[in-house]
C-alpha cells in the first residue's frame, strides 16, 4: 500500500476537466437505456444495434417463429426487423411505448404479412393448440431461452402468472390473434363463435393482462 500511497501523494492535483454527463447504469431504467441505444442506432452506431439485438432478438425470434412456423422464415423476419430498426430508428416515438414494444410491432407485422402472403397459417401453433389445449405455445413455454438472465426469467414468470388469470377461451383467443395474426372475425369463424363474443373475449383478456403486467412494463405509459 505504501508505494501506492507514495504515488498518489506525488501525483499532481487533478485538473478540472470538461464535465460529461453519462448515464448511471445503476439508476438508468431499461426503457431509458433502450431509448439511448436506439438514439445511437439512429446516429449510425452499429454497436448500439448489436446491443439491442443481443437484448431482444430472442424475444422477437420467438414471436416470429411461432407466427411463421419456419425457422428460416423466423430468422429472416428477425433480420428484417432489425434492419428496419436500423433504418428507421429516428421514427421511434417514446410517447408511444417502449423500444421493445416498437420492435414487437414491427416483428409481428412482418410475420403476419409473411403468413398472409403465403396463404397459410403457422402449423406449429395450430397443432400445439390442438394437442395441448391447456397450454399456450410461446407464452412461457417457447423452448430454450437465449440466455439465463434473471430479468428474462422474471418476465416469463410474470407473464405466466398473468396468463394464468385468463380463462381458457380468453387465452385461446389471444393465442390466435397474437401468434396467428387472425382478425377477430377470423377467430370467430375459426372457433364458430359470434363475432361480438370474440371481441369481448379479446378485450377482456387484454385488459386482464394489462392490469396484471402493468408493474412490469418496459415503459411507463402515460
Amino acid at each position, binding site marked *: 500500500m505504501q508505494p501506492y500511497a507514495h504515488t498518489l501523494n506525488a501525483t499532481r492535483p487533478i485538473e478540472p476537466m470538461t464535465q460529461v454527463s453519462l448515464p448511471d447504469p445503476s439508476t438508468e431504467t431499461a426503457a431509458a437505456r433502450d431509448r439511448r441505444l436506439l438514439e445511437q442506432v439512429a446516429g449510425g452506431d452499429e454497436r448500439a444495434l448489436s446491443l439491442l439485438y443481443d437484448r431482444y432478438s430472442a*424475444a422477437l425470434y420467438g414471436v416470429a417463429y411461432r407466427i411463421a412456423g419456419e425457422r428460416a422464415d423466423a430468422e429472416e423476419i428477425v433480420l428484417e426487423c432489425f434492419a428496419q430498426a436500423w433504418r428507421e430508428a429516428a421514427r421511434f416515438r417514446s410517447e408511444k411505448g417502449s423500444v421493445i414494444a416498437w420492435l414487437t410491432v414491427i416483428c409481428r407485422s412482418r410475420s403476419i404479412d409473411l403468413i398472409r402472403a403465403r396463404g397459410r397459417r403457422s402449423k406449429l401453433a395450430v397443432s400445439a393448440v390442438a394437442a395441448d389445449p391447456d397450454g399456450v405455445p410461446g407464452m412461457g413455454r417457447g423452448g430454450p*431461452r437465449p440466455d439465463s438472465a434473471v430479468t428474462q426469467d422474471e*418476465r416469463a414468470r410474470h407473464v405466466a402468472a398473468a396468463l394464468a388469470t385468463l380463462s381458457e377461451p380468453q387465452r385461446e383467443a389471444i393465442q390466435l390473434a397474437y401468434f396467428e395474426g387472425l382478425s377477430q372475425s377470423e377467430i370467430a369463424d375459426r372457433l364458430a363463435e359470434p363475432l361480438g363474443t370474440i371481441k369481448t373475449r379479446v378485450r377482456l383478456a*387484454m385488459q386482464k393482462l394489462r392490469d396484471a*403486467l402493468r408493474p412490469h412494463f418496459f415503459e411507463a405509459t402515460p
Partner: protein
Amino acid sequence: MSAMIPDAIRDLAAGYALGALTPDETRAFEAAMKAAPELAAEVAEYREVNALLAHAGATAPSPAVKARLADRIRREKVVPLRAGRSWLLPVVAVAAAASALWAVTLNQRLRTATDHLNSRDAKLAAVEAQLARKELTLNTLLTAESDLAVVQLTATGSQSPGIQFFWNRRSNMGVLHAFRLPPTPEGKVYQLWLLRDGTPYPSATFTSEADGHALVQAFALPGGGGDRGAGGRVDDADDADPAGGEGVGLGARHSALGARRSALGDSTQGRRVSVCLF
C-alpha cells in the same frame, strides 16, 4: 373526454394493438385515435403487454443471423434516419440552406443574365439604329445624283469652324459635316437650326468629337422656298447679344444669315449651328 369516445370504438383498442381488426375497423379506430389521445395511451399499454408476451416465448435465433445483420447493414450502406437532435438535421438544414442559397444564386445569375441580354439587346438596337441612320445618310448622298448640292461654309481664319452641307434637293434631305467646332460645355450640346424663308426650324442636336468634327446624319429639311444656296453660323445660344459676340459667321455665297440670327432667340442651350437655306 373519455365519455366522448363511444364504447364501440374504445372496445377496439385491444384488437387494434393486436392487429386483429378488419381494415374498416382499423381505419375507424385510427381516425378516433387522432382525436382522442387517451385511446393512443391505451393502445400503448396493450403494446407493452405484447412486448412482454414476446419475452415469455423467447428463443435464441442462430448466431448466423446477427452476422448476416451486420453484413447487411454494411453491404447495403444503410444510412439511418436521424432523430430530431441528430447530426442529420443540421446536414439537412445545411443542405436546405445550400439549396436556398443555390436557388438565390441561380436567381441572381438568371437576373444578371437577363439584364445582360437586355443590355445586349439595347446595344444591338442602338447599333442597328446607327447603321440605319448611316445607310440613310449614304442614300442621301448617293441617290441625289445631279440633285446633290454640296455647300462649303467656311469662316475666315484657318482655325475657325467650317461646315460641309450636303443637300439632296430631290428628297429634301441634308447631311451636315462640321469641323473645328469648339468643344461644347459640360452638359450642353449643339443644335442645328435651319432657316428657310425667314423661319427658323429646330433640327438635330449633336456633340462634336474631340478633334472638333461632328456629323449630323440625314435629316429632313423644311420644305418650300428656294433651293439656290445655304449659309451657316456657329455661335453661343445663350449669347447675350445674338447678333454679335463670339458668333462665327460662315459665309458662302450669301451673308444673309447674320440678319436672320435674331429670329433664333435664345431658346436653345449650348451652341448653335444655323444653316440658312435660300
